[in-house]
């Protein structure tokens, strides 16, 4: 209901202001001999911006501060002693009042002052909503008035709209940054709580991972050495890359350089399907087909290969990642200018020499980007590892043995049955944060390398 009113308000402002901006500037243009600086469309958009922005800002501010304002309003309604209570208690009281006002029951009989406060709060909610809507509408109209007065031949509407667009783009690219901040914030508190149980040194340098299940009676905390998980992650990702990079890259090369277009058009989407198969399917594929196959193979050649092992998980994960590398690389390689290819072929280079020595180096930054993306995917993958790696977080260097990874442990500990305030469960946050920081460092390094490489050739 509220949302509907707001949406309607914004929509009205939008159409009205655009129309006014557009038609006014158009009239100007047809009147004089001089040309408009910007086309009427831009004037319309600019007017719309001027009308909408103040309104949205008002609404946004309200969304931001309403909680604080509401809080202090409720507090003001309650007896002054309330403010003397501890923060948790104050919050509890405020929650009670809000719950009463919104029709949620509360424990115990509500006190009369609480009821009064709730009543006042209800009125306050309505009044404040009306006030905010009114303010937004008024400011929007003001903005529109201002904007339509500015309209003139020399008004650089386009430039201004473009600046707005630019700001919009910047805002979009900050979503990623905000996400990061959000992730760090949502992990940090609990990770710190974990470290209040467990010494960070034991965590970062421990070689045993055995969190146990916290039995209600015993206070056993278990052991939380990160290294076995980390090594498992590295090993499985490495194996996955060993499978995916050659196959993916060679497929991409073949598709973009050798295959006739109709083959390409058929094969490429089929390979892309691999990316869409739910990872749980891969997990079962690994467990039921690939694992026993490797075990059998090992038997044949006299090597002990376990059915569930880093090898199995890595290979299957590699299969899943193939399309990431092949599709992206294919596009990137196809974009290397044809003249480059001709130059090399004209010198008598074979197709493969041209690809290896000219096209690939030219496409390398992009390809490296694709590979990094794939590595990231491999590190973050859980389902396959859960099923295929044997969930055995022990520091072992033989890929034919079972292992486990950081992300699997995160999922296990987080969605398990353990007490959510115990280190068994909190360790997930510490693991998440650690993984986050580590991949961050890895990416900084990668950026540095790619940059260095690009500098050389551009």
């Amino acid at each position, binding site marked *: 209901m509220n949302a509907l009113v707001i949406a309607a308000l914004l929509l009205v402002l939008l159409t009205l202001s655009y129309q006014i901006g557009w038609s006014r500037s158009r009239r100007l243009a047809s009147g004089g001999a001089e040309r408009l600086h910007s086309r009427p469309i831009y004037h319309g958009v600019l007017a719309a911006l001027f009308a909408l922005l103040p309104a949205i800002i008002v609404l946004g501010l309200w969304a931001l501060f309403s909680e604080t304002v509401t809080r202090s309003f409720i507090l003001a309604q309650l007896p002054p002693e309330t403010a003397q209570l501890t923060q948790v208690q104050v919050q509890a009281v405020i929650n009670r009042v809000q719950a009463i006002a919104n029709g949620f029951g509360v424990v115990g009989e509500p006190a009369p002052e609480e009821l009064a406060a709730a009543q006042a709060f209800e009125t306050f909610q309505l009044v404040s909503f009306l006030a905010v809507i009114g303010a937004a509408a008024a400011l929007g109209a003001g903005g529109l008035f201002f904007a339509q007065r500015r309209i003139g031949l020399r008004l650089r509407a386009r430039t201004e709209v473009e600046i707005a667009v630019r700001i919009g783009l910047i805002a979009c690219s900050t979503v990623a940054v905000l996400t990061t901040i959000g992730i760090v914030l949502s992990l940090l508190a609990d990770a710190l709580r974990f470290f209040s149980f467990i010494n960070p040194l034991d965590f970062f340098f421990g070689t045993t991972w055995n969190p146990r299940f916290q039995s209600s009676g015993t206070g056993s905390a278990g052991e939380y050495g990160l290294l076995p998980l980390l090594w498992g992650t590295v090993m499985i990702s490495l194996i996955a890359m060993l499978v995916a990079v050659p196959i993916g890259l060679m497929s991409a090369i073949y598709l973009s350089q050798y295959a006739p*277009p109709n083959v390409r058009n058929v094969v490429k989407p089929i390979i892309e399907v691999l990316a869409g198969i739910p990872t749980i399917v891969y997990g079962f594929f690994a467990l039921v087909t690939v694992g026993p196959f490797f075990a059998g193979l090992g038997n044949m050649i006299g090597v002990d290969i376990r059915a569930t092992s880093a090898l199995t998980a890595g290979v299957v994960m590699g299969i899943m990642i193939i399309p990431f590398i092949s599709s992206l690389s294919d596009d990137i390689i196809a974009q290397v*200018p044809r*003249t*480059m*290819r*001709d*130059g*090399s*072929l*004209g*010198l*008598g*280079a*074979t197709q493969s*020499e041209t690809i290896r*020595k*000219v096209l690939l*180096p*030219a496409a390398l930054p992009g390809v490296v980007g694709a590979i990094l993306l794939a590595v990231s995917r491999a590190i973050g993958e859980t389902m396959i590892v859960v099923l295929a790696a044997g969930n055995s977080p022990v520091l072992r260097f033989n890929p034919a043995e079972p292992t486990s990874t950081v992300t699997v442990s995160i999922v296990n500990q987080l969605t398990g049955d353990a007490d959510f305030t115990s280190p068994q469960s909190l360790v997930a946050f510490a693991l998440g944060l650690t993984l986050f920081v580590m991949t961050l460092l890895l990416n900084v390094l990668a950026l540095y390398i790619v940059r260095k490489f690009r500098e*050389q*050739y*551009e």
Partner: protein
Amino acid sequence: MTIGTTMDRSAMPPMNQSNTTAGEAGFQTVRTPDDTGHPARLKAEDVSVFYNEKQALFDVSIDIPEKAVSAFIGPSGCGKSTFLRCINRMNDTIEGCRVTGTVALDGDNLYDASLDVVELRARIGMVFQKPNPFPKSIFENVAYGPKIHGLARNKSDLEEIVVTSLQKAGLFEEVKDRLHSPGTGLSGGQQQRLCIARAIAVGPEVILMDEPCSALDPIATAIIEELIDELRANYTIVIVTHSMQQAARVSQKTAFFHLGKLIEEGPTESIFTNPREKRTQDYITGRIG
């Protein structure tokens, strides 16, 4: 040097592409036999080229003499580049391009199934219309050919080849301090000279040049023309050019293409001074295009 601030070819007839339709029957190239005694190294016979369904070249037959420069001239889009690409089979790399007829080098048909295209292209080098240096250092650009063909025994060999090639292309002095900076950072003219150096470095027998000087200033052009003149003592050179002056200056044989057909070919001197075909005459005097 002619000086004129106004146009000297202002009365231009309207374009008359429709006069000579593509399928015209009984078409015959006019040939003036060459008496300078250069034996034919390359022989093209009835070469037609199709881009998908569209025919771009019609039954071209021509002999390219050894140790001489042959120039292809003709208006834009007439098929000069297309024919040039037939000679080292670069057309193979174009999707949908189909070549019929034969081109023979020393009597061996280049379109023979048993022929090795790679070897062929090492023997018949090519320089393109738009400069296309690799995104590598200047040195690597030139060293690329010799490396893949295994022409250098060792590093110093390679360096020597690179330096010599750059010198011959008239680029060495300008880039000697930055041999290891990227080739793409050069100006247009420098880039094209780099491409020429790159082609020379492989030591081909025939060199095909598709408007090698179109991006060069007169001085650099002169250097290249001089180089072409030097090289023709030992090599067979084919050059596509828009500049009739250039064709006149550097070539011994000229072929005139028009709308995908080879209209006239013969010793440069006779083509320019005494064209036997009306359209050649018209083109040279600027009446058709």
